[in-house]
């Protein structure tokens, strides 16, 4: 066997063997008690944006595309979800202190305004996450209203 073939074969074997390592899925049933929708009003027009552009990495439920079954795609995704949820989890928003809730809302508005969120790599794969100017405005307005309503509580 030539050296070239050997390297190729090793590559194939590694590729096949990494397919066996699958990260746990980010899925849960029902709406958790601490979900943001139980704390504040989320109109349908905003809910759609959150579900399309945010919830895959910032909630306890990810809609998985087919290609996550191919490693290492699934690993990259699992890492993004883990980091995303640690920074902000809409499914656990109600468990944050009022102080943290206010901060997170401000950060949502700022990062959407600046185009930092949704991440460019995520937008590349998810057409619906490429928010239009109108969608951004709707989301940011909702964030400001929510922040005001929470500060009055």
């Amino acid at each position, binding site marked *: 066997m030539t050296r070239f073939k050997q390297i190729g074969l090793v590559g194939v074997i590694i590729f096949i063997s990494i397919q066996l390592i699958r990260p746990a899925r980010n899925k849960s049933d029902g709406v958790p008690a601490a979900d943001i929708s139980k704390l504040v009003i989320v109109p349908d027009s905003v809910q759609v944006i959150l579900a399309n552009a945010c919830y895959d990495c910032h909630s306890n439920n990810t809609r998985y595309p087919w290609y996550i079954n191919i490693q290492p795609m699934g690993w990259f995704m699992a890492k993004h979800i883990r980091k995303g949820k640690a920074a902000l989890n809409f499914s656990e928003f109600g468990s944050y202190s009022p*102080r943290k809730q206010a901060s997170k809302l401000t950060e949502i508005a700022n990062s959407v305004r600046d185009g930092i969120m949704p991440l460019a790599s995520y937008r590349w794969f998810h057409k619906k996450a490429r928010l239009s100017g109108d969608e951004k405005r709707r989301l940011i307005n909702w964030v400001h209203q929510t922040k005001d309503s929470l500060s009055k509580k």
Partner: protein
Amino acid sequence: MKIIIISMTMAAVAFAACNNSSKKSAATESVRTDSRAVSQTPSENPVSINMTATDSINKIVAAYLQLKNAFTNDNSNEAATAAESLQASFKTFDKKGLTGSQKKLYEDVADDGGEHAEHIAKNGGNIAHQREHFEMLSKDIYDLIKGFGMGQVLYKDFCPMYNKGKGAFWISETKEIKNPYLGAAMPTCGTVKEEIN
């Protein structure tokens, strides 16, 4: 053929190791949350705040003021460095002897303020973004000072121009206004709103 077998075993071992480490970190995480749940129970006998807690608060406020002064000089990298030491002082806080409500206030402030400090530390070069977090951090520090008291006189200053006329406040050690939000562009914009003893 030997090479193939060796590299396959190596790959298998490496991936097994990867898997283990992620499991381990999940386990330590659950332990950590458990211990936090225990420490959050309010103490039965409220004790007045001890020396170590006062020292800890002083350290946090000193790091905050250093951060504030970096912003008044429009120095983004210095702000990042100050934010790093602020982050460290949030973590090393000695919570012994705090009452239940003090502990709750501190934990809320440290959780939120620690994240703002982290953002500022990681965004050297992006002073606009750092200042957004500084605004939220200032509220945390104000509440902390009000809740614990300080040995030193501090001032709560307000700049009505920052953030498109929404305004923002900050804490200062000097009566003289030095604006951390607008820096050299508008160094004296603002007024003293409160003297905190």
